[in-house]
């Protein structure tokens, strides 16, 4: 069966520090991968998606970047965090088309101080 792992689960970072969140999917090949952000008490905002290795699409201009170095690995990064980057970051995958069911990781809660 397919599983998705996301880490770290929680982190507190100072403004201006770098960020790296990792996500890996097991049990499937060539998944579509997504990074969403959820601000406190808010909905899910799509940040990046990837349909294959090295293929990244950005949905909104921001302080973050994403990379997909391997088929089942998706990384969210920042060189210098801003206060507004605080939130709950969720990695997700779907097989086949974008329109299929999304499977979410457990999420990474980031607090920037």
């Amino acid at each position: 069966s397919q599983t998705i792992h996301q880490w770290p689960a929680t982190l507190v970072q100072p403004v201006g520090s770098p960020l790296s969140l990792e996500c890996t999917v097991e049990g499937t090949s060539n998944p579509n991968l997504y990074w969403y952000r959820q601000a406190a008490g808010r909905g899910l905002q799509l940040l990046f998606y990837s349909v294959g290795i090295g293929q990244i699409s950005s949905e909104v201009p921001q302080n973050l970047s994403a990379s997909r170095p391997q088929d089942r690995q998706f990384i969210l990064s920042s060189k210098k965090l801003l206060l507004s980057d605080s939130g709950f970051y969720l990695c997700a995958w779907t097989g086949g088309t974008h329109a299929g069911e999304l499977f979410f990781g457990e999420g990474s809660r980031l607090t920037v101080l």
Partner: protein
Amino acid sequence: GQQVMQIPQYQHVQEGEDFTTYCNSSTTLSNIQWYKQRPGGHPVFLIQLVKSGEVKKQKRLTFQFGEAKKNSSLHITATQTTDVGTYFCAGPFSNTGKLIFGQGTTLQVKP
């Protein structure tokens, strides 16, 4: 741009009361999905509706997809404390197919 709107944003009910959340899209959708996020957790897929006017039931939950495929609703009969959480609708948009989520409706149930 294309949007998915959900109302209400919050709903507090007494255990045993019914609950409904409504979802409206700015464009026609090929399908609509519903997710539930428990407090502190991640969204979990509940159901997908594809056909115009489709109605699906999962125990006390009833999901409807509008005739024009631009709106949807989730109705919970006789809420229980286990229903607490945020319910999201999401739809793929024709130009990209990516899922766009509504803002969610957070349900609180008083025992």
